[in-house]
């Protein structure tokens, strides 16, 4: 059954349940929350995510009423709740330490809040039993908190804070004390209970996996400010800053300078590659120029006409060539011929194309410095940017980059799982050559730490669909890593 997507934040008609309006909170000199505005909607499961000291707990304590904002206002259901003491707010909190009353039984702990409301006894009993059923604690009603396990205590704390049916439930690192397996189970249980009760949940956590699993929206915080508020997938796939990209999950950050890419393949490039050039040539064209053959310009031009391009051969790009010939070569000396590192073509490949593996020569006139529309002909979508990020390394193509960033320092955030790794050259717009330094084997996936020729590291991740014994990449292996032109997110530094 298809469900309608829950996204009240996209509906301008929808009134937020909670609204932070330019809230600032200072503790003496220290600014914990800095002019922060935020709207949280009814029935949301909202996560405040950030490292310790980012102000997320202060936000929660202001919602609970234990702290008052120094400036600005917090609205609950449209009413300003600053100055309302915690015991008069329709907000309950589940504490990180659970804060169960050790002298009371599980039943009395859950009934504690209800008794304060002065409800009739049978009503309290009915509500407590309902909560015990919801959290599957019926068997433990008469036990004291120290007589039950950590997971059960967590559920008592949840039941107790839900018993009064608050408009808003705050969860302060609710699963921090549980071991991993139990935490994962409990995450789903929390989501289930949140859905069943229809309560708005705000969870504070520093565990990004937890936030992404449970939350409908995640707010990433840093030093008292909210950096980005979005759904988990947007946060992960389209972080708006390097901080967010780096905080959420694992990421390769490629820092460099952006250069606009032509909307359509340049004429000059077409002339070189020719209309019949196979698509992989495009990939090869930007492949590391360190693999380029050691040839002088004249030799190359001589070879040019005679030699068609092997699609597998790494090709130096124009800029790399130019840099090498005009700048680096006099200083660093000649590149070593890298061709021998290429895998030998299979017999089939030999049969179909008996072409020598030399790089395509480039017209010296074309090898102009940036922003010449040097590289990249072909079927690859035009536009976007290329990023020059390291000397001796080919620029990285990002067709999803904004051409307006031309000339600015940028960072390409690239998730390891979007980076492919192989022992043979990869058929991808961006390929880099390197050596495996480390392998983090996690069972289901492996992360390869590949050192590139310039010393920088790049992480590539593969799912271990094969049994271990049959995996072929190991330490010290020369490998290719590659990624598509849209795999990364271009962020302004």
């Amino acid at each position, binding site marked *: 059954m298809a469900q309608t997507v829950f996204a009240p934040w996209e509906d301008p008609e929808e009134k937020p349940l909670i609204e932070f309006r330019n809230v600032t909170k200072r503790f003496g000199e220290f600014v914990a929350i800095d002019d922060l505005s935020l709207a949280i909607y009814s029935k949301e499961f909202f996560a405040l995510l950030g490292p310790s000291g980012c102000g997320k707990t202060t936000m929660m304590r202001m919602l609970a009423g234990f702290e008052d904002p120094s400036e600005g206002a917090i609205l609950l259901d449209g009413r300003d709740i600053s100055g309302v003491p915690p*015991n008069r707010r329709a907000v309950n909190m589940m504490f990180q330490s659970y804060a169960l009353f050790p002298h009371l039984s599980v039943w009395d702990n859950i009934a504690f809040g209800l008794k304060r409301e002065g409800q009739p006894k049978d009503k309290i009993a009915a509500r407590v039993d309902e909560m015990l059923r919801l959290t599957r604690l019926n068997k433990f009603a008469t036990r004291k908190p120290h007589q039950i396990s950590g997971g059960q205590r967590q559920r008592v704390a949840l039941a107790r804070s839900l018993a009064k049916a608050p408009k808003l439930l705050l969860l302060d690192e609710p699963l921090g004390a549980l071991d991993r397996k139990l935490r994962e189970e409990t995450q789903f249980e929390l989501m289930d209970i949140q859905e069943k009760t229809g309560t708005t949940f705000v969870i504070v956590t520093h565990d990004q996996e937890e936030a992404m699993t449970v939350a409908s929206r995640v707010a990433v915080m840093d030093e008292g400010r909210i950096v980005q508020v979005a759904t988990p997938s947007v946060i992960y796939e389209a972080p708006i800053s390097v901080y967010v990209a780096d905080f959420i999950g694992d990421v390769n950050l490629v820092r460099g300078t952006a250069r606009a890419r032509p909307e359509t393949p340049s004429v000059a490039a077409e002339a070189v590659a020719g209309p019949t050039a196979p698509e992989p040539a495009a990939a090869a064209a930007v492949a590391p120029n360190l693999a380029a053959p050691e040839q002088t310009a004249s030799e190359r031009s001589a070879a040019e006409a005679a030699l068609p391009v092997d699609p597998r051969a790494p090709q130096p790009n124009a800029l790399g060539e130019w840099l090498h010939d005009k700048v680096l070569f006099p200083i660093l000396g000649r590149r070593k011929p890298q061709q021998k590192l290429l895998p030998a073509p299979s017999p089939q490949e030999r049969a179909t194309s008996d072409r020598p593996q030399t790089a395509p020569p480039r017209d010296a006139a074309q090898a102009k410095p940036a922003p010449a529309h040097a590289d990249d002909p072909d079927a690859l979508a035009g536009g976007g940017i290329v990023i020059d990020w390291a000397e001796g390394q080919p620029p990285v193509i990002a067709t999803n980059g904004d051409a307006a960033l031309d000339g600015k320092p940028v960072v390409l955030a690239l998730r390891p799982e979007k980076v492919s790794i192989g022992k043979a050259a990869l058929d991808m717009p961006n390929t880099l050559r390197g050596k495996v330094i480390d392998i983090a084997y996690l069972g289901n996936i492996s992360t390869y730490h590949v050192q590139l020729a310039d010393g920088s590291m790049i992480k590539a991740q593969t799912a271990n669909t094969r049994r271990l014994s049959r995996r072929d990449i190991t330490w010290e292996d020369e490998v290719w890593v590659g990624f598509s032109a849209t795999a990364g997110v271009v962020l302004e530094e």
Partner: protein
Amino acid sequence: MSGDGLDTRHRGEALRKAVLIAVPYLWLVALFLVPFFIVLKISLSDIALARPPYMPQLDLSAGLAGLRDFFAGLDFENFVFLTEDSLYWKAYLSSLQIAAVSTIITLLVGYPIAYGMARAAPEWRPTLLMLVILPFWTSFLIRVYSWMGILSNEGTLNSVLLWLGVIDVPLQIMNTNIAVYIGVVYTYLPFMILPIYATLDKMDSSLLEAAEDLGCSRTEAFWLVTLPLSKGGIIAGCFLVFIPTIGEFVIPTLLGGSDTLMIGKVLWEEFFSNRDWPVASAVAVVLLMILIIPIVLFQRNEQKQREAEG
């Protein structure tokens, strides 16, 4: 490893444990059980004018006959005597009453102090703790004597009150039960404060926040959470004040009047004024029996506390 080697090691381990346990037991036997039996024996003896001032004495040179004579000479005469003279049971009751009242007063004074200390800024707590313990550095006797100087008719308190014009005639505090209460509360206050402070200090402050979050006012949170959770400290403090106060001798002697009846004072007089060691020993044995009840209760409370925390 051979079975023998393992066996030897086990035996060595067992011996080590036995020695370790033997030390406190020997201590208790030598310094508590043996003296107790000596006192018990004297309490069953009769007064005599020679030294030691009681009869019979065990004459082992007479052999079995001597032993028989010795046991024949013991009787419960002195215990019977304690029930006949109203002085003794009145003294016991009065001691219990004074101890109970002082314990309550000490609790009422000590709890807020302990609470204040536990709520004080962390950097102040060691200093406050030090201030509570500091009086122990001076002799107990000197501190009680100094109270005489404060409370007597020409003492500091009366002088100040007269100078302020609050009173015209000096207050008669010295040599009354009030002076005894003041002395006991002053002396035993640290024993009340420290255990209560320990439980309050351990208490997770998020429990109070949780109580407030669930709808309690600050006062309600105190009665429903803080007080029940400091119960262990309150009970420990009460026993630590109550038990020594019952047998207290110095304070009633120095600060109390002639009508201040406390069993510790009676005991002293029997031993050193009347030189009736058998009756004095009987008083001591009965006092010990009375004290054993609260001591056992105290230990049971400690045990329960430990179990609750474990």
